[in-house]
């Protein structure tokens, strides 16, 4: 499958899904991202990105876990697929390789 490159935000979302684990849904992912990056994220961006990621095959979703706070509505819970995990790793490898190759002089 071609197109295994993902944008910065998409990568962050994937990572957040991995971190949050069991209860990975819209609001929790958003909170995780905000905590980690320090910038404010709109919930609709998260939702639309996750939908896109699902379409690309990096995550899967299921409905579940309705609570009172949500007025009884179910959450859409996300989970990384094997393909998704592969993509995260690959991206990390590329980044690290490039980071290593920057000449030491830059850092002085």
């Amino acid at each position, binding site marked *: 499958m071609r197109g295994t490159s993902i944008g910065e935000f998409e990568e962050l979302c994937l990572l957040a899904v991995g971190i949050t684990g069991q209860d990975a849904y819209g609001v929790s992912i958003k909170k995780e991202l905000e905590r980690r990056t320090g910038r404010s994220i709109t919930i609709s961006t998260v939702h639309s990105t996750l939908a896109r990621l699902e379409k690309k095959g990096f995550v899967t979703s299921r409905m579940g876990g309705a609570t009172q*706070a949500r007025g009884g509505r179910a*959450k859409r819970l996300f989970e990384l697929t094997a393909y998704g995990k592969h993509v995260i790793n690959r991206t990390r490898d590329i980044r690290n390789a490039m980071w290593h190759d920057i000449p030491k002089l830059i850092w002085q």
Partner: protein
Amino acid sequence: MRFLRWYCSEAYTTEIEGDLAELFDEWYALHGLRAARWRYILHVLLFVRLYNCRFLDSRSSQPYVPMISHNLKVIQRSFVKNKTFSLINMLGLAMGLGGSLLILLWVMDEYAVDRFHENTDQLYVVNTRSYHQGNVGGGPGTPYYLGKEMTAAFPEVQAATGWAPWLGAEPETFSVDDKTYKMAGNRARPEFFSMFSFPLLEGDPATALAAPNSIAISRQMAEVFFGSPEAALGQVLRHDNRQDVTVQAVFENVPAQSTLQFDFLMHWDAWVEEDPIRQLPDAFHVRTVIQLDEQADPDLVEAKITDFLDTYIGFNEEEFDVELTLQPFAEQYLVSGFEDGVPSGGRIVYVRLFGSIALFILLIACINFMNLSTASYQNRAKEVAVRKVTGASRWELISYFVTEAAVFACLGIGVALGLVWLMLPLFNDLTGKALVLPFSDPVFVSVLGSLLVMTGLLAGSYPALILSNIRPIKALKGTFRFGVSATRFRRTLVVVQFSISIMLIVSTLVISNQVQYFQSKNLGFEREHLVYMPLEGELIPDYLVFKERLKDMPGIKMVDRSSQAPHAMTFNTGAMHWEGKDPETLVFGFTPTSVGYDFVDIMGLEIVQGRDFSAEFASDANNFIVNERAVEIMGFEDPIGKQVGIFGKSGEIVGVVKDYHFNSMHNAILPMAIDIKEDLHFGTILIRTEAGKLNEALASMEDVAQAVNPAMPFAYSFSDQEYEQMYRNEQVMMRLSHAFAFMAIFISCLGLLGLAAFSVEQRVKEVGIRKVLGASVSSIVALFSKEFVMLVGLAIGVAVPLSYVLMDQWLNRYAYAIDLTWMFFAVAAAAALGITLLTVSAQALKAAFKNPVDSLRTE
């Protein structure tokens, strides 16, 4: 949240709403209620994205295509199931569409008049605007020389011609060898054929009217005299038995869409030379049409020509002034009236009136259709419910109903076209036109198409919107009823329908009465048993001989003459002078009539002052009789003996005649000056025949005419017939409005019928219970009628004031009109009520007679 639900496809709604709910709580805790609300709204808007848009959801748009054929099948079945009902519905729609189509054709034809000329945009007709003692007046009459002078004086005026409108009604005699016929035509300047697009079959536009003795004739005239257009070229015709003219061109017969109608054209300037009156600077008798250069700006030109006449007529500018104005040639047919000196009104009033009537009828038909369809859908609530349960989306339901309405509309238009095709010959007779269904005209086809779409959408949308909203559970249980708002809407529709119908009834009544009034009003002279003969040929010099011989013949009572036909003296002038009149002013409207000595007698007029002309007074050859109105205008206390003059002749007033209608009753009676001229070379011979002896009289007339004037065919016309012709417009209007009122009523009735039937059916159980409890038949009928009577009452309340205003305005256009009494409105209202009661009670009776056992048995 509703917004979100509307926009978002259902797959995502739950989670988004849930997330937003969580966040809302947080925001509320952190920032308070108001901030929380704001953020909520903001985020909902942010959720409008492509990924969750429901309208792009590929799932529901797929089964659309196969649905069409399914829809059509269902529609066909439902049609068959309610055959009568569907037929009534479609018939109503077809009638409405058909009626509007007919009117549309008529209106299109009216607008097409005179627009077929290639140079249409450059052609303008010259009108006058006159100021007299503070009053502004406008008129179409211009001097005979105007065309020639304007082309010479203004470079922007490329070409010009005059036109004598009255010549079309006065056929002239032509003969070749032994063939003698009368043809009607006109005079024109040489550039006529390059200005207007009347194609020439033979000859050249440049030479067609170049020579003074040239004549251009129509194909018809060429065939009648010479057998063919080719044979006619270069031939000589004898005109009026006094001059020979040579055929220089043959043109194609003039189409009906031209206001300029003629079978021949002769040289303008030569004609003007014939009669000194035509050379007078203030003889404003003819129309002048000019052609402007392509680049010329009509407004600039108009400003330039405004005071052109001042160089020819020396007017005292403060008291009296005449200016020239331009009007596009194509417009003068529709906008033929004048108001405050500017062209306004005229036939276009009728055109607009009929256009609106057409729209109204269409509206009624559509409303009807909507109403009836909606009513019928009540019965199909179960069907709709089942569809919903099996997963039809709201969109699918709507599209189904719109399709059904569209199919009806299609069928309706088909039937309508058929109806129009059938009615067209009749309609053409009525209106005097030659209309056809122009399927090749893109305008027509596009109008038809848009009608179809509009009707379908309009009629289908309303029931669709209502029905797609029903709750399946309620419907399946069988307890589905339309909401209050739906019923209210339908009722408003009925009220609108009936208001329009009532207005139409009132209009019809008023118009009919007005036309009848015209026809029966006492004109002030005896219309019956009066025959006209044109003065021509040998009759002109030998008039007195003719008179002597004829007046003692069987069947003839009296013979006399007049310079204009007595019922249509349209020729009037300002060239009248009288004692004490300011010589600098011109008063338009004096109608000069030159007659024989027996004129007053033969017409049956009444002398109110002074005496009639008499051959015993030699001086009477130079004296005048005027009418009461003239006395008013001239301001004489005692007119007898005062000096007056017109066209170079002056004399004394010897008598005053009572005002009589010598012109159409559209206009007020104008002042008139009668003098004796038994040798005028034009005019009409008046013959009073004895009652019941018409055939003998005609035979006598023919005998004497043939003896005195053998070279020309015997021609005559009847005064009362000619008179009726003047009101042809009104007659057409009257018949058309009859037809339309009838149509509107019929359609409204259909609507009412459907509604009544429906309403009764709804309450079948209620009726059953009432009967069981002892209600009489009449009380049940009353029960139903009350509701509808109230509606009609409301319609009456709306329609009466509106129609009063409209009719009042229309009648004001006539100088002589009937009074707008309450009778008209009462009759219309009574008719509407009557029809309503009839229709409703018919339905109610049916229900009342039903056996309560049957009606209460149903589940």
